[in-house]
């Protein structure tokens, strides 16, 4: 138990890969380095895949169009016509979290296991959520939206500014960490063969589900902030 706790603790700490030797040394965490790797991978992939696109798609372009079209349609369905402009950001976040969760398969530590990364993503999400409300309704309407459905609930609406990013952050972090801890326990008991199906579930299935849930919830909160009082009843049914 003691050993396992210390082993877990060492896995949990955000390890420092190297230190930039300026301003007295800036430590760079492993999760940041892996994030750079994912960024490079995605940039290179998007450069390669969009080379010589054709009117009639052939080869990899077919799959590319299917994926991008699916993402755009997914966000447009939730956010509606006026929210279409946010789909590039949400799609990027989806691609990043998807890659970050799946990177455990090739033996690297998923960056989403670092609480700082998920906290950063959640804070960006809450800023975007509030911005979308601000943009759609203007300053007055945005402030008024805190007093909906009645002024008595205003404190709860303000509290949601903290609760929403906290729960987004903890959900992603907790799921990745939970899968990781369970996998470690299984590997401790049976080191071979048996972990494979569990790894399929925890690394691939759960990772993709959490990606979906993260962007889906962000988009849903944005829609809730953007919509006006009159159309609210229509979308209540989801």
């Amino acid at each position: 138990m003691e050993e396992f706790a210390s082993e877990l603790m060492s896995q949990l700490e955000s390890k420092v890969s190297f230190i930039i030797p300026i301003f007295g040394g800036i430590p760079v965490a492993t999760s940041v380095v892996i994030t750079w790797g994912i960024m490079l991978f995605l940039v290179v992939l998007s450069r390669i895949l969009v080379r010589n696109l054709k009117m009639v798609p052939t080869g990899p372009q077919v799959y590319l169009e299917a994926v991008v079209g699916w993402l755009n349609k997914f966000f447009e369905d939730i956010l509606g016509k006026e929210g279409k402009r946010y789909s590039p950001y949400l799609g990027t976040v989806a691609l990043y979290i998807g890659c970050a969760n799946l990177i455990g398969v090739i033996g690297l530590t998923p960056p989403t296991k670092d609480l700082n990364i998920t906290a950063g993503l959640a804070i960006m999400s809450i800023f975007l959520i509030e911005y979308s409300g601000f943009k759609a309704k203007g300053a007055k309407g945005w402030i008024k939206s805190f007093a909906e459905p009645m002024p008595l609930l205003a404190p709860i609406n303000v509290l949601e500014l903290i609760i929403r990013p906290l729960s987004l952050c903890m959900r992603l972090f907790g799921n990745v960490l939970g899968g990781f801890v369970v996998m470690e326990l299984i590997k401790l008991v049976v080191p071979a063969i048996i972990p494979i199906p569990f790894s399929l579930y925890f690394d691939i299935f759960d990772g993709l589900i959490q990606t979906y849930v993260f962007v889906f919830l962000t988009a849903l909160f944005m829609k809730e902030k953007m919509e006006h009082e009159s159309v609210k009843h229509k979308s209540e049914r989801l």
Partner: protein
Amino acid sequence: MTLVAIGAGIAVMTGIGAGIGIGIATSKATEAIARQPEASGDINKALLLGCALAEATAIYGFVIAVLIILFLK
């Protein structure tokens, strides 16, 4: 050490609620899809949202349990 383990066990009991909640949500969703197969896309979306929110409580319990094991020795 024993007390710490017991405390972590109690914290993980939040999973009971999440399990019951997700079970109820899934059973209703299957019923709904059986009744209206053409609406399965919308039902799946609502189900995933409900599951994510119900699961959050279990995750909080789990995070608290890990924190208990790691920081109370």
